[in-house]
């Protein structure tokens, strides 16, 4: 049985001025209690704008958004009481210690006294920052700051935790730490809205995924549901010896039988094909014909990258 929707987004439009295109364009989705929902899309797709509207920072141009039954426009304070946000930017005070940052943000969430002290201790331990609790945040590494940024979002045990690109610009070790931590939260039943432009993260973490591009939600479902959109197709990934020429190859491949879509980026060409075995020789021949050398070729099963390519004709990193 499906749980009740904690977040309901209906026909959400948002643009920053009448002369600019919609940053969020007719987006609708629900997030159920205990669910980890990812918004996946390239930079500038509208993920942060959507999260800003849901968190009451921005007012929608039209449409409705409710969190835990509270409309973000009519009752923003009620919404703010049930949400926690870890923004993409490290919103911390470098001249305060980790403990002072947590105390300040806890007070702003309405916590104080013993309850706040307990939460601070818990969050510091959770993020393995207890030993550095009394050091100024300005002395922290990027990964430590990112962890503290997440800890602040968790203060007050919010019903909905929104994590906006939490693994941007950090080292692989810290990234792994954060992903494992998000999984633990999910196991604990915390409802999470997670935005990312990393396909692997969305695949690894999410119960359901919404793919967003140019402000529009172009696909929504579980990983299996999304990959079924591509059908039984496979993806050839060619790494070229040359940096240039990928776009010409992608264009040339469109005319080969069995090629559904092709796109190029950074010396790499992704080719969505009905059968890798049947089209491989023709693909290599096209590259050779254009004077391009192929360093490696691998064949991939359908994944979110394939889905994005299938839906937009572009690679997710474009």
């Amino acid at each position, binding site marked *: 049985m499906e749980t009740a929707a904690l977040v309901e987004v209906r026909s959400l439009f948002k643009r920053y001025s009448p002369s600019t295109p919609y940053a969020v364009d007719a987006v609708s989705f629900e997030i159920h209690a205990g669910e980890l929902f990812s918004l996946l899309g390239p930079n500038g797709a509208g993920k942060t704008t959507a999260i*800003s509207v849901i*968190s*009451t*920072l921005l007012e929608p141009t039209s449409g409705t958004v409710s969190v835990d039954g509270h409309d973000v426009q009519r009752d923003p*304070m009620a919404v*703010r*009481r049930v*949400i926690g*946000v870890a*923004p993409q*930017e*490290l*919103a*911390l*005070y470098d*001249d*305060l210690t980790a403990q*002072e940052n947590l105390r*300040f*943000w806890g*007070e*702003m*969430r*309405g916590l*104080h006294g013993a309850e706040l002290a307990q939460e601070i201790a818990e969050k510091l331990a959770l993020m393995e920052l207890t030993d550095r609790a009394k050091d*100024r945040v300005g002395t922290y590494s990027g990964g430590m700051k990112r962890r503290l940024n997440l800890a*602040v979002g968790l203060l007050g045990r919010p019903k909905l935790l929104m994590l906006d690109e939490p693994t941007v610009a950090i080292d692989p070790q810290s990234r792994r730490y954060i992903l494992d931590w998000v999984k633990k939260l999910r196991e604990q039943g915390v409802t999470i809205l997670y935005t990312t432009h990393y396909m692997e993260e969305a695949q690894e973490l999410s119960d359901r995924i919404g793919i967003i591009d140019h402000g529009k939600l172009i696909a929504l479902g579980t990983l299996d549901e999304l990959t079924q959109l591509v059908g039984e197709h496979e993806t050839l990934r060619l790494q070229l010896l040359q940096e240039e020429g990928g776009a010409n190859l992608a264009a040339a491949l469109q005319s080969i039988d069995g090629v559904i879509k092709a796109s190029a980026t950074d010396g790499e060409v992704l080719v969505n094909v009905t059968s890798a075995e049947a089209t491989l020789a023709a693909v290599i021949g096209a590259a050779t014909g254009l004077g391009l050398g192929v360093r490696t070729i691998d064949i991939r099963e359908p994944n979110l990258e394939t889905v994005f390519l299938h839906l937009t004709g572009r690679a997710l990193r474009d």
Partner: protein
Amino acid sequence: MRKLWVLSLKEVLLTVRDVGALVMMLVTPLAITLVMAAAFGTGGTDAPLESIPVLLLNQDAGTMGQALVDIFYSDALGDLVTPELVTDEAAARTRVDEDDVAALVIIPADFSARVFPLGALAQQMAGVDVTRITSDTVLTQEQQLQLGMAFFQSQDLTKTDPVVVEIYASPDWRISSAVVKSIVSQGLAMMNTQIAGTTNILTRLATAQSQADAPSGDFAQMAGVFQMDWGSDGAQTAELPIKLHVTSSTGRRFSWLSYYASSLAVTFLMFAVTTGGRTLLAERRQGTLPRLLITPTPALAILLGKMGGVILTGVLQLCVLWGATSLIGAYWGAPLSVLLAIPVIVLCTSSLGALISAWARSPGQAGAIGAAITLIGSAFGGGFVLRWSLPLWVQYASFVTPAGWGIEILGRLQAGQALDRVLPWLGGALALTAVYYGIALVGFRRQFN
């Protein structure tokens, strides 16, 4: 309320941990105060003034007191001062208290006798007013003999304490009373020269009479030889037993150290507060303001908390500067009055910071605008030169910035004015505060939306 306090304390904590800010807020104004006080410590000031009303109370029956009075009535000072002779000391002091006149000069009854005892004896024994002798004066042998005797008798007089000429000045007529003081000082210096010259001649006359081979000739001839005219450069000066005592209805005297201590404190308060206002824009840029806005805290509370922190920091800054400069001898005014004035001045200054940060587009722009307004406002308000030496239109123009109000208020308190006389100025500062905060709120609404 608790959140306001937490927000304010956070601001204070961030400021005190910023070494650069502390240097700008505390060290720099202290250092410049010391330099300015050292540079202007003994200097006076001049102002484009005319017809300064001054009362003269001459209680002296001798010629020296009258000579001092005559200086005020001389043609050279005709445009500068409007003297008035009075006889009722209490009534005259009241007129100063009521700011009716710039100052009252009180010449004591024994002024001539104590300043120039030889002159008094010469008048008494020879019937000669030595201060009026010129090379054309003809003295009899008897008068010359008596003058010589007067000289020797004057040598036996015991030196007494300096005679005090009091200038009772109005704190509201700072420059004017400084001008009066300058006139009296110059008059006394001139008398000093006259007395020294006269004493010189009488010494020679007495010596001539006591020696058989002394050159003959009368006193007037010798006066001609030695060019003994009042104010002659040829006369030697000696220390004059006169003390100039400047008092005011409030009992305070002007001090450059005190003036710069408070005026520079106000100037650097403006620097600090415009920086403080800038933090709102900086918080927006670093993402902490958006994060604050999605906590269950009303936007107005966030704004008030931010400004509360700026005000708290400003009050601490002024209090520290007040304490530190007091330790080196500066006087800011009656403590209770200063304690009341400081929050008002800080509040007024914070309104400018709020105004700038509400309408500037970036922290850099806010910083540049804040620095420009601080420097111009401070120059107009008297942060760098004595406020009351500036043209009146400049003084009035300065009231569009907190510097004008702050320096005016603290200047009045320094002069010893009672709180009730400073209240209208505090009210003016609060009115400006209301106007600036009103305009700032419009800007903040635009920003927060």
